[in-house]
């Protein structure tokens, strides 16, 4: 039985889709069978980030409504053999997804794949709740910034209340993935530090992805950064995060902070 991991955040634009693609590709590269499911009905983008936008024939809604078989809708990645994508539909109908339908699709995927990554839409409404509904684990993507952290806290509340696991009295394993981390700004006290974020959310850290031009370039090229430029710092951080997700104990290194003498002297006591 595969593991279902929801990638969620509450707030939009923090890097859910990018992180889904990067983490999924990193796990698949180790030989595991991985399915990426785009839950953002109406605003699909995972296909674009994966560079598969011209190969979409059927989508998640087609499968749920019985217009296509799951095997017809799954798109195999051209770079990694064990990586598959199930795109969202472009339909505007918000009710196109039913809980039963999603449950059936997830069950089938779970029986075939080692990992099923569910890319959640932004917000805390139905779409986001369906994306997390059947998850065993959650990756909460957070930017070190007040509104993102607040929304992550809301999402954590939902994960503990509205997922099937939570309702059955089981735990859902939660991990925080801090993205767009700017070490220089954090060291100057202009950005919430990793410690701040973890202390506030009290959820273990999966990784820290530094703010990087390479991530944008990878999106432009339609390739997860972990595949196109596996040696750059953001990709390495994603690869390490993927290893931690698989249970490996790997220390998290906070991206280098260039501290001046005065910064050191003042440190966190400046608060």
């Amino acid at each position, binding site marked *: 039985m595969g593991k279902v991991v929801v990638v969620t955040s509450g707030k939009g634009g923090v890097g859910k889709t990018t992180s889904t693609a990067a983490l999924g590709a990193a796990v698949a590269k180790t030989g595991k069978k991985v399915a990426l499911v785009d839950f953002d009905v109406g605003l699909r983008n995972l296909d674009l980030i994966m560079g598969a936008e011209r190969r979409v024939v059927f989508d998640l809604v087609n499968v749920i409504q019985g217009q296509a078989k799951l095997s017809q809708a799954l798109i195999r990645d051209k770079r990694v053999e064990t990586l598959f994508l199930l795109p969202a539909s472009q339909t505007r109908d918000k009710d196109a997804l039913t809980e039963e339908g999603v449950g059936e699709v997830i069950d089938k995927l779970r029986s075939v794949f080692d990992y099923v990554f569910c890319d959640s839409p932004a917000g805390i409404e139905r779409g986001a709740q369906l994306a997390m509904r059947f998850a065993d684990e959650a990756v909460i993507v957070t930017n070190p*910034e007040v509104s993102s952290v607040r929304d992550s806290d809301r999402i954590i509340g939902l994960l503990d209340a509205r997922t099937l696991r939570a309702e059955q009295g089981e735990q859902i394993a939660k991990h925080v993935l801090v993205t767009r981390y700017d070490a220089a700004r954090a060291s100057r*006290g*202009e950005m*919430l*530090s990793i410690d*701040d974020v973890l202390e*506030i959310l009290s959820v273990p850290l999966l990784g820290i992805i530094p703010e990087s031009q390479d991530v944008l370039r990878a999106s432009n090229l339609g390739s997860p950064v972990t595949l196109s430029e596996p040696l750059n710092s953001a990709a390495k951080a994603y690869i390490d995060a993927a290893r931690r997700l698989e249970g490996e104990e790997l220390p998290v290194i906070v991206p280098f902070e260039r501290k001046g003498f005065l*910064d050191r002297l003042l440190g*966190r006591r400046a*608060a």
Partner: protein
Amino acid sequence: MNLLDMFKRRSSAPVARERLQVLLAYERRNRSQPDLVSILREEIMAVIAKHVQIDQDYLQVSMDRGETMSTLEIDIQIPNKSAVPLAMAG
């Protein structure tokens, strides 16, 4: 201390942390009582519906939370047209 003050003023992250801690402590408390207002709204609506037919929109329930006391405000508008009690109408 002037130099120190200058540095202190520059870093906004500690302010962000403190604001978040206060806000989230408050929001988490409220989360544990699952949307009291909407439960009240539903039950009040059910009680009214036993006697008078009104539209959902005519019932406003709001909670103003204060430090030591909260105020629950219930505003029910009964349009004259449908104000006839069901018992009498029947």
